[in-house]
């Protein structure tokens, strides 16, 4: 599939990506000869992101969104699967090649209080990546680029010699974004980058993401649990549930007409800030299933209102349903 001519604009392609974490029991369970449990955080997911596109990855806590981000940046190594960046096998890169490649993929984390070094000035935080990747040589050149970056994210020259603690949460997130941009990446992965912010600040940062994308032609993998944020920022959306992608679709199609029972449930559960909209409700039974030694069949088994006998036995695969949409469900 990678040989098609249309893959020129393909930036990131992920196939069968899987990550298992072995849960080591305590010494007593080992002595008792119990087998270590395996947590399948990400379970054979496929997705792709084209240049200039924003893919929103949405799901509830523990569904594997952040693990996915860490896998495609090789901060952790996958158990199985392929990650192709610009049509090259990222997982086969040598450590040296990987280090060079890191400048193409940058991360913005959720908590700007822990992702910035409190002992370094903003100048240092923003110029260090340039030094590492040899993008600026002289001090003057660095300073000029840092000033330009600060200006682009809505900060100014007076901020350059300050420390992270002197900034508010929203400003810190601007610094984190500036740091990601300092090495001129192609793909920016935002792992819940607006979840820790207040609504009025969140809107500012979302606008900033949008403006920067237009200006620098960036590609985003945007991870969030807030569906209205995902709708706002994404061109396409992938919905995850317990390590699986259950539905992917263009944002407008997904939100106008969700097809997978889990996507429907997620949307119905969102309280919209409009008293005339229907109140939030849960259309699924029970609680999120466990990713530890998952049973065969669909992960939503036992919770789904549209369950068929086949669901408990055969795992549904993502199938094309037209309109650029894929759904993994036996009962559409």
């Amino acid at each position: 599939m990678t040989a098609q001519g249309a893959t020129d604009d393909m930036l990131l392609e992920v196939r069968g990506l899987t990550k298992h974490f072995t849960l080591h029991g305590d010494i007593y369970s080992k002595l008792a000869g119990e087998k270590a449990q395996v947590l399948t955080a990400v379970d054979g997911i496929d997705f792709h992101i084209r240049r200039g596109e924003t893919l929103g990855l949405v799901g509830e806590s523990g569904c594997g969104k952040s693990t996915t981000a860490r896998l495609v940046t090789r901060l952790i190594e996958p158990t199985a699967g392929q990650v192709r960046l610009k049509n090259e096998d990222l997982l086969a890169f040598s450590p040296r090649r990987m280090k060079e490649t890191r400048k193409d993929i940058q991360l913005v984390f959720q908590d700007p209080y822990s992702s910035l070094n409190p002992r370094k000035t903003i100048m240092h935080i923003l110029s260090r990546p340039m030094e590492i990747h040899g993008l600026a040589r002289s001090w003057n050149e660095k300073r000029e680029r840092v000033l330009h970056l600060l200006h682009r994210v809505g900060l100014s020259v007076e901020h350059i010699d300050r420390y992270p603690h002197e900034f508010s949460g929203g400003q810190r997130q601007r610094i984190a974004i500036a740091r990601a941009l300092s090495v001129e990446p192609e793909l920016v992965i935002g792992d819940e980058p607006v979840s820790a912010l207040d609504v009025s600040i969140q809107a500012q940062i979302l606008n900033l993401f949008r403006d920067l994308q237009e200006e620098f032609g960036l590609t985003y993998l945007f991870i969030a649990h807030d569906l209205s944020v995902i709708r706002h920022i994404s061109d396409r959306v992938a919905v995850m549930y317990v390590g699986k992608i259950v539905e992917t679709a263009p944002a407008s199609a997904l939100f106008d007409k969700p097809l997978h029972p889990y996507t429907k449930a997620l949307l119905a559960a969102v309280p919209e800030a409009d008293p005339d909209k229907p109140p939030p409700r849960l259309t699924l039974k029970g609680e999120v299933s466990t990713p530890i030694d998952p049973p065969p069949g669909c992960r939503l088994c036992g919770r789904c209102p549209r369950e068929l006998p086949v669901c408990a036995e055969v795992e549904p695969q993502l199938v094309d349903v037209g309109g650029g949409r894929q759904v993994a469900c036996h009962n559409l």
Partner: protein
Amino acid sequence: MPETVPETVLELDDLTVRFRLRRGDLTAVNGVSFAIARGETFGLVGESGSGKSVTARAIMRLIPNPPGEIQRGRILFGGSNVLDKSDAEMRALRGRHIAMVFQEPMSALNPVFTVCEQISDALRTNLGLSRREARERVVELLSLVGIPSPQKRLDSYVHEFSGGMRQRVMLAMALSCNPGFLIADEPTTALDVTIQATILELITGMIERLGMSLLFITHNLGVVAHSCDKIGVMYASHMVELGEKREIFANPQHPYTVGLLNSIPRLDIQARHLTPIAGSVCNMMEPPSGCKFHPRCAHAMDVCRREVPKLKEVAPGHHAACHLHDQGAAA
């Protein structure tokens, strides 16, 4: 107002809470007044640091002193001032008449006691039940809040429950002594959206069924839109807008409320750009003069820099604290 609402359960009058910190004084709640009628659900909305939680804690008299201090104002609960009560009277009030649910159940519940032990503690002290009676009541309570097979979960510890189930345990504990008034401080903020939906349904259902009043504190406007009758919007320690839910959503009068509503990305339409509120929340150690919102407000006038606007009625039952509503103010 008394002719429309039958009975006021809680009334805050000019509540002002100050913290004396090493760096200086911080006024966390500044002249806040509102009333909650029997059977009513009141949503207190605001961003972090706006003073919502301090207001709730002041009602329960849970402000640590020092550094906290209720500088002025009254908190009338059932007609008598909570601030005049002795510690013993407060203990009789808490749990029995006013109960509270917190945001983070893992830190609000005790990890070394079983669920049954924690809940029956309140039942035995407040209602004087025997151990066995308390145990039976706990089973009832747990099934009331929708914990499956409560008999089996009675002797579990908090860590054995999921986030949503823990919040149900908290709610069971809060409801244990049939209080007439419940304060819920961000009860669903730490939860996933599907679990939030069930907990919200549970809380609003309970309130209605048991005829309780509710003070619901949240930063999420979506949550108040569906679970409250009345709304109070707080910004930087002041109550800036107060009124019926529908009225506030349909016809917000304070620029901050307008800005907040415009900041929320919508689920039904995709806008290219959001309209955020400019700037960031003021430093509460050095608040701006006059209206706390004026540095971020597009309509700021000279008077906004000088004078703190008072909460005035702008439509029947709808109050806003903004100089734009002063008589003769050029909009």
